């Protein structure tokens, strides 16, 4: 689990994080400010996926409804801004409070079930809030609402893309480090034990529900923070952020990047965002209008890729590196 110094995996991780740190500089040098936006997006969804991975990869709880909490974060910014509250601290505080409250309530209901029922119920609850957001006509309803200005964090102005970028980067790095500590802590061991064999954990004397609930809430809060950042990045809050497809995308990111790792979800996020960008701008000059078909219907290719990865590459792309090393032990 811990990236050993000197291993292939460690160098990949270091290079990846190093690259992320340098993106604004590279973008400025290349005259392509677009890179900053793309990588901001990658990191925001990477952060959400990292949050989900706490319970999915390490806890074995497959939530198909975590996009809900991204929406909570985004709408915290949107609704408060709409009413004239522009303080970033208020936005963040509201997102965390609302996210925690909802996560406790939803978690208590969902965690009474397991397996496929858990997956279905989390999906249903996310859908419920999607409909709620759509019905809030004064906040844009189906179309969502644009946000006039980015969150005001007093000392820092997020108006500059690079500043927002580094805020996201900082929070992502903090989340990764925090997750690293949690995974090896007592709490993390209990969570991983529940994934391995919950029946035995209960027999040993652990009241497993409270630990799973705590982990669920923590992962929800990370997604809420990601939502706040997303709203700032796009200056928009929309029910679309809570759609079941987004929840599915988070799981796919974890799959592509590797479940049993810390950095995997971020790698997966990069993979998904880059695939989407490459395919929607597909122009290789192929015959029979294939270019147009690919750029219009790239989601089918993504779907096919997902199926192939599930059936063939069990541990995801980054996780494959991990498994290779573990096998060499």
């Amino acid at each position, binding site marked *: 689990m811990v990236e050993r110094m000197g291993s292939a995996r460690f160098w990949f991780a270091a290079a990846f994080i190093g690259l992320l740190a340098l993106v604004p500089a590279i973008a400025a040098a290349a005259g392509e400010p677009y890179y900053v936006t793309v990588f901001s997006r990658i990191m925001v969804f990477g952060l959400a996926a990292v949050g989900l991975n706490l319970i*999915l990869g390490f806890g074995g709880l*497959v939530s*198909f409804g975590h996009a809900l909490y991204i929406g909570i974060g985004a709408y915290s910014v949107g609704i408060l801004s709409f009413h004239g509250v522009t303080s970033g601290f208020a936005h963040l505080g509201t997102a965390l409070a609302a996210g925690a409250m909802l996560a406790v309530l939803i978690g208590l*209901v969902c965690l*009474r*079930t397991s*397996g*496929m*029922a858990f*997956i*279905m*119920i989390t*999906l*249903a*609850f996310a*859908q*419920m*809030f999607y*409909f*709620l957001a*759509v*019905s*809030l*006509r*004064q906040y844009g309803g189906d179309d969502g609402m644009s946000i006039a200005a980015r969150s005001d964090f007093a000392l820092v102005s997020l108006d500059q893309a690079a500043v927002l970028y580094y805020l996201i980067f900082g929070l992502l790095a903090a989340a990764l480090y925090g997750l690293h500590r949690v995974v090896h802590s007592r709490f993390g061991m209990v969570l991983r034990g529940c994934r391995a064999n919950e029946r035995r954990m209960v027999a040993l004397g652990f009241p497993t529900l409270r630990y799973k609930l705590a982990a669920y809430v923590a992962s929800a809060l990370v997604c809420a923070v990601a939502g706040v950042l997303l709203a700032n990045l796009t200056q928009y809050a929309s029910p679309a952020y809570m759609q*079941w497809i987004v929840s*599915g995308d988070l*799981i*796919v990111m974890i*799959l592509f990047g590797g479940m049993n790792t810390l950095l995997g979800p971020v790698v997966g996020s990069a993979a998904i965002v880059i695939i989407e960008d490459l395919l929607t701008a597909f122009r290789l000059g192929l015959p029979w209008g294939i270019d147009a*078909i690919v750029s*219009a*219907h790239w*989601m*089918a290719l*993504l*779907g*096919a*890729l*997902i*199926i192939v990865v*599930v*059936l063939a590459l069990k541990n995801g792309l980054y996780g494959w590196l991990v498994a290779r090393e573990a096998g060499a032990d």
Partner: protein
Amino acid sequence: MTSSLFFTQLLNGLQLGILLFLLSAGLTLVFGIMNFVNLAHGSLYMMGAYFAAAAYRWSGSFIVAGLIAVPATLVLGLAVERVALARLYSRDHLDQVLTTFGLILIFNEVVRFVWGSAPVYMNVPSALAGTVSLFGLPYSAYRFAIIAVGLAVGAGLYLLIHRTRIGMLIRAGAANGAMVAALGVNIRLLNSLVFGLGAALAALAGLMAGPIFAVQPGMGEPILILTLVVIITGGIGSIRGAFYGALLVGVVDTVGRAFLPGILREFFERAIAQAAGPAIASMLIYLLMAVVLALRPKGLFPVKHG
């Protein structure tokens, strides 16, 4: 709130419930036997609707459209099951969810490619374009036909499940698939049979829903999620749960959306009722599901496992 309006909405709720029942019956049985939820079930519903719309356009006959769409979707469903899904029965739930997610993406794009993104409209068949008189009140003949067909199919399903040998095997398989397999029954074949039946029912639902809902890419997923709410509320693996759950969800959703805003206006000031009414109405069935789960985590009519 007049009683005739209420009665109409109640019937609409029944009609929605019947459609949901057709979709949830197959889904819940497959889950019971193979412990696998096919999230691409909504895609089969969508394909049924598209096949029906295309066949209807070509033939001009609703019946012919049905005779083409249902078998076509059945075959498609069986093909998908054999080629992609059968490998997943022994895999963990995450893999199953991801694979069906991938299938959903593929189906939506295929449909978009062949028929475009714009909704395709199906007209209500002219024979059913009028109204029927129920207890002196007029009701859409087409919607009444849906209820009638749905109940007839439900009755047929009941007879199949509870009065035939194959039905007994299905019930046994849904309660304890491993045991049934250990007794020498070809559980894979049984499951394929149930899967095919489910696909056919989904296609029938798609055919009948065509003239009422818009036939468009992505139409399957909102209905799928409603179906999941039905089988969670009713009890996974149970046909009875699917039936009562579907009717409950259909009625609560339809009647709730129609009357809750009005009811709220009686008790709260206008502004709040305007805002909260539609919001709560849209969340009503999920709140219902949450309450049922809080009291009975296994649903209203759970299957007792051996």
